[in-house]
Each structure stands twice: as C-alpha cells, then as structure tokens.
C-alpha cells in the first residue's frame, strides 16, 4: 500500500497528506498511529524509533474518520477516557474534561450521550478526547468528511485556529485539495502508495512536480512541448506550432516536456494584437459566466482545448466563435517531465 515514503514532519506544523482515495494516506496515518507495522523502514517520533512501541504507548492520538466515539459512554466519559487510562486523579480529570470541552466549545454538554449530538458536535468531542492527554502529535483521518459543506468550512478555520493556539503537530489526512491548501503549513501529495511531492501549498500549486499533482491540485491545461533553446532567464520551447518562453531550470535542447498552465493564469486577447510574448492562436468555443468570473474554452489550431478563467470585467473579447489569442507570462508555467 505504501512504498518508499520518506517524510519529515516538523514539530508544531499543520501537515496534510493529500491524495485520492486508495492512495495510501490512511495507511500511512495508521502506521504513524501504530495500528499497522511497516515491513521495512523506520518511524521516528521526536528522534526515537517507535515502530516497536504499541499504539497505546505512542505519544500521538488519532481523530477517526467517523469519530469512533464510545456509544455507551457520555460525552464527558468519552473525553476522560485517555486520562482514566493514565490513572489521573478524579478531580483533575474533571477539571481537564471541563477545559477540553470548553476548548472545543461544548461547555455543558458533558452529560449527553454521543448519539444525542449533531455530526459537528460529535466531531468536536472526538477532537477533545484526542487532545486531552496533550499528545505531541494529533493525527486526523478525514475528520470533516461526514460534515456538510458549510459546517466543513467553519470547522476548517476552527481546527486551524486550534492548532495554532495549542502548537500541537497536526497530521491531517484528506482527499479535498482545497481543504489541504487552506489549512496546511505543508502538504504531502500521495498517489499509488507513493509520496509525490511535499511542500508549502503555494509550492505545490505553482510548481507541481508531475502531471498527477498538477491535475489533482486545482486544474491545469497541459501542452506538449520540445525544448529548442534558452537564454539567461527563460527556456524557449516549441508547442502547438508556436515558440514560447517559459521560466525554469535549464533542460537539454531537444528534450520533450509537458507545460502545465493554470486556467486563471491565462489571458485572452483579440486576434491580431501582437504586443505580448507567448501567443497561442485559437477560437473561443464556449464561455460561461460564474459570478466570480468567466470560464472559457479555447480551441487551439492543433485541436487541443484550453480552459481559462477570466475576471468578470474581462468581457470585451468574449464573443463565442471568434478568433482569439491566448497568452501567459513566462513564470506562470510549470515544466513537467514528459513521461509522467
């Protein structure tokens, strides 16, 4: 399920493991938690190997996907469970349970049973239960997956604020790229059991290492290209019959590459206007108004279709069927190895 993953998560950071379902992110989380053992390799927690330490002795707690609250115990008893296992004194447990419930804004609900709470409230109980023993690391397995969109957004910012306040390292598993980008200090993108890229959200978004990352995080247009030269700043590549300038590391002349272009980094200009560099001829095939802007499809001369997102004021050139030029700035392109 998980192969050749080498990953260092920093103390106090909000780290997300992002990938489609079945990519191995949950397996990786379960390895960290101690529910699975690696066939080879090491897991270090604060510098010492924990692969032989059972789950119950690891200084990290997990928030399960569907919360896994004990249905026969009240909210307070659920939250107290970890402390009771550590044989903490009764009055201290009471005090810390009250604190933990306050932390997740569930004051006064301690006597309720889990089934009497809404999904969002159950989520908070799971959070309080996992945080009460003050673990070094909190593992979260798609904790917001069962909530509706509005509640999700609320919980996202709440979780992020909580993490900042506590300074606990969060390892957050999700398949929602928007969620990962919005919450994380760093993101690890997984696919097929492998960790493809690790980086800050803007690095992942602007400089994806391969076609999978470029397509999974946000949306990308892909253009096949061949390197024809370079100058001191840019590579010159040939694609769709045009010579284009893109910014990136030097690559041997003649190499085939793939260019990844974000829809919102593309601009549309009237045909015949030839001031800018990087002009691609095309025909405006479709344009839809989305409120936040326009979403257009442009068919290039070689038949490939590019998607562009335009700000709402850019409606001047948008007559469907007309000939247009697509353009983009050299730094706005990610250059990918062609085989990936």
């Amino acid at each position, binding site marked *: 399920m998980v192969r050749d993953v080498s990953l260092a998560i920093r103390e106090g950071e909000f780290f997300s493991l992002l990938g489609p379902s079945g990519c191995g992110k949950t397996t990786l989380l379960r390895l960290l*938690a*101690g*529910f699975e053992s690696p066939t080879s390799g090491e897991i270090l927690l604060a510098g010492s190997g924990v692969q032989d330490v*059972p*789950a*119950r*002795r690891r200084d990290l*707690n*997990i928030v*399960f996907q*569907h919360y*896994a*609250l*004990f*249905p*026969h115990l009240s909210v307070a008893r659920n939250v107290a*469970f*970890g402390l009771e*296992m*550590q044989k903490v004194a009764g009055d201290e447990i009471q005090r810390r349970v009250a604190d933990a419930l306050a932390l997740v804004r569930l004051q006064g609900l301690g006597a309720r*049973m889990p*089934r009497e709470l809404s999904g969002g409230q159950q989520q908070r109980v799971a959070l309080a*239960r*996992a945080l009460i*023993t003050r673990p070094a690391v909190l593992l979260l397995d798609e904790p917001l997956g069962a909530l509706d969109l509005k509640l999700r957004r609320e919980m996202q910012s709440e979780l992020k604020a909580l993490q900042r306040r506590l300074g606990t390292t969060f390892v957050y598993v999700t398949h929602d790229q928007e969620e990962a980008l919005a919450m994380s200090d760093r993101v690890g993108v997984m696919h097929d059991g492998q960790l493809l890229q690790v980086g800050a959200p803007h690095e992942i978004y602007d400089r994806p290492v391969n076609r999978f990352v470029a397509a999974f995080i946000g949306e990308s247009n892909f253009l096949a290209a061949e390197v024809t030269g370079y100058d001191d700043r840019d590579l010159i590549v040939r694609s769709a019959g045009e010579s284009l300038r893109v910014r990136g590391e030097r690559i041997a002349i003649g190499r085939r590459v793939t260019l990844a272009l974000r829809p919102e980094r593309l601009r549309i200009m009237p045909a015949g206007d030839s001031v800018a560099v990087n002009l691609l001829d095309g025909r405006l095939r479709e344009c839809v108004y989305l409120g936040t802007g326009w979403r257009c499809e442009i068919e290039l001369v070689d038949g490939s279709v590019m998607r562009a997102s335009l700000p709402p004021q850019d409606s001047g050139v948008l007559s469907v069927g007309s000939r247009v030029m697509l353009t983009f700035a050299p730094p706005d392109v990610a250059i990918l190895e062609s085989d990936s």
Partner: protein
Amino acid sequence: MSGHGSKPGTRAVGVLVPPAAWLTLLFLGPLCVVALISLMAPGAPVEWTIDGSAYQRLLDPIYLGVLWRSLSLAVMATVLCLVLGYPLAYYIARRPPRFRRVLFFLVLVPLWTNSLVLIYGWMVMLRPNGAFDQLLQGLGFGGGEPLTILYTPAAVILGLVYWYLPFMVYPLYASIEKLDFRLLEAARDLGAGGLAVLVRVLLPLTLPGIATGCLLVFVEALGAFVVPDLLGGAKSMMLGNLVQQRFLSVPQDWPMGAAAAMLMLALLLVGMLWASRVGGLRRGA
C-alpha cells in the same frame, strides 16, 4: 400509506390469530394443566383434591439439594460457555465474511446431529479406559488409576457446555459482528491495554449478546435431563430428572413433578427478567 387508515393493522391482527391459537392451545393449555396438577394432593399418580402439599414437600433437603445442584451446574455451564464462547465468537466475527459463514456453520454442526448419538459418544470417550482415559494415561497424567469422571457432576458440566455452546456463540457472534472495531482501536490509541479494552469497551458494547447467550444456555441447562441422566448418574440428578421421575417412574407423584416444573419455570422467568434488563439497558447504544 396513511390513506388506508387502520386496514394494515386489521390485517395484521388476522394473521396473528392462528399462531396465537396455536400457542394458547398447545402451550398455555398444558401449562395450566401442570399448574393445576401441582396444587393437587399426592396419589398414584394424582389425587384430584387441592391441598398444595407438593410445594411444601419440595422444601425437603433432598429436593433442595437437587435444586441447588441444578442451579449451580446450570450457572457453571453458563459461565464456562461464556468463557469459551466469547473468544470463539470474537474470532469468527473478525474473519473475512466468507470464512465467517463456514466457521459459523461448523459451530452449529453439533446442533444438527442426533443428540443421543453425541451423548453416547461422550460416554464412550469418558468411561474408564475410554479414549479420554487412554489419552491422559499416555500423556503421563492420571497416575495409573482408571479415570472416574463419568457419572460425576464434572461430566454433566462437560456435556452441558458441549451441547449448549452454540446457543452462546450465536447471540455473541451477532452482537460482536455489529461492533465498530475502530472503537477498539480508539481505546488502544488512548492508552488502554488489553484488559481495559475488554472491560471498558468490548464487554459493555456486547452486553446484549452476553445477556441473551447466558439466558439461552442457562434456560436450556437448568431444564436439561438427557445429559445429567446419561453422563451424571444418580448423584447428579437435576430438576429436569426430578420432574421426569415423578411423572414416569414408580412411585409416581404427579403433583410433586408438577410443582418442580413450576419452580423451574419461576427460576427461568427470573433469568429472563434479568437478561432483558441487562440487554435492554444498552439497546439504544
């Protein structure tokens, strides 16, 4: 649906008439007859005048001994079934689904085999110089003495546990299978050791299955008469044997047998009340 008013309800009542009649005629009727007989004066087999002396005679130390033995053997068999059945049910419930069905079928096989054949099989195995004895001697246990387990309470418990284990495993399996096993992981994650996981999470959440299983085995074991009759001998008489004897063997004493049967029924009702309390408390969970 609501437009049809009480129609579905009426039809449901109609459907209930045959089984209700069946139960009344064939269950409640005989029960009333037995209750009535239990109140009659002793005779051979019965004197049709009400005196209630049969209950008084049940207080005789000999019969109280039978009662005590029945209760203790039934309780021990129930506890042993639980101790053996729980790990078994847990193991089966955690196999992949297709193995579960096969394993579960294997547990049920003894139920589908002729019970006399099974009991005679046990007799052959348990008797002195039987298979069991030879095995123990071969392993160096027993000190050369022939095995004397047959016709003892121990043999009765062995037989009861063997016979009624499926009654324990089935409800346990049903409630363990429904369990969300991530709850056990959650407990471990929060620092619970094996015993704490068992006592704090696993047992409370499978309590309905435990209560049902215990009730089924206890009810069956308390009323057993074939097993104690064949494996236990005279010293291991249980309530079921007492009832059977007073009705069928000379000297017959129907009121005595009926009174013993009513006592057994009362004990079973207490057991059922307890089980529904324990099982019902957690139903919402």
